[in-house]
């Protein structure tokens, strides 16, 4: 989504077209957190939009997230995360535990690993997820393991 909203990147229109394509497109809370984080740094944009549509800045980011989900016909799925135990340490948020478990298999940066952890949890809950669509080339480094172990393929927008 960030790539689709970034006019300075030559892949922006391809990312937008990809998002607009029909299909079942699932996002997790981590996608929303990252997008919120990017939006929160654009103070001028938020001020302008807030003035334009006459909404309090505090409600604007949730409104933009809702707009983006509806605009691209995305499906938000919660992990319904419980708090299982991390052996010997205690309770831990399930996506973090899954990321810890995956860290031995996949050599990815922390946030990339968390994205995969959310996907694994959603898959285990029955979501039909088989493809990660991204502009982040680092996912390619783990492509073989993702396909072999988790049955997830990578589509790189480049």
């Amino acid at each position, binding site marked *: 989504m*960030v790539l689709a909203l970034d006019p300075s990147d030559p892949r922006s229109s391809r990312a937008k077209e990809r998002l607009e394509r029909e299909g079942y497109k699932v996002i997790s809370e981590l996608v929303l957190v990252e997008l919120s984080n990017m939006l929160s740094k654009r103070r001028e944009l938020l001020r302008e939009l807030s003035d334009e549509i006459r909404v309090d800045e505090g409600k604007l980011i949730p409104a933009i997230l809702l707009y983006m989900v509806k605009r691209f016909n995305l499906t938000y799925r919660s992990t319904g995360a419980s708090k299982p135990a991390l052996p010997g340490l205690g309770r831990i948020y399930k996506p973090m535990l899954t990321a810890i478990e995956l860290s031995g298999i996949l050599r990815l940066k922390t946030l990339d690993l968390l994205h995969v952890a959310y996907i694994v949890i959603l898959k285990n809950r029955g979501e039909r997820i088989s493809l990660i669509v991204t502009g982040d080339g680092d996912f390619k480094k783990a492509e073989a393991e993702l396909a072999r172990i988790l049955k997830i393929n990578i589509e790189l927008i480049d």
Partner: protein
Amino acid sequence: MELGVFKSRSEAVRALVKIGIEELSDLAVIVDACEKLFELERRLGDIPIRLRGGFKELIEMRERSY
């Protein structure tokens, strides 16, 4: 329902009972703002949110998380 936030009236009612009256006003404001963003897109002919340099920034942010 018009925006597809809820699939049916009964689903909307269940959700509203669950979140309570206090958060209902927040939800109404957010849904209304979302509708206005769609109106703004129709006026401008494009998505009204631009994150110039955003993707590079996102990747840098992920790099720092390593």
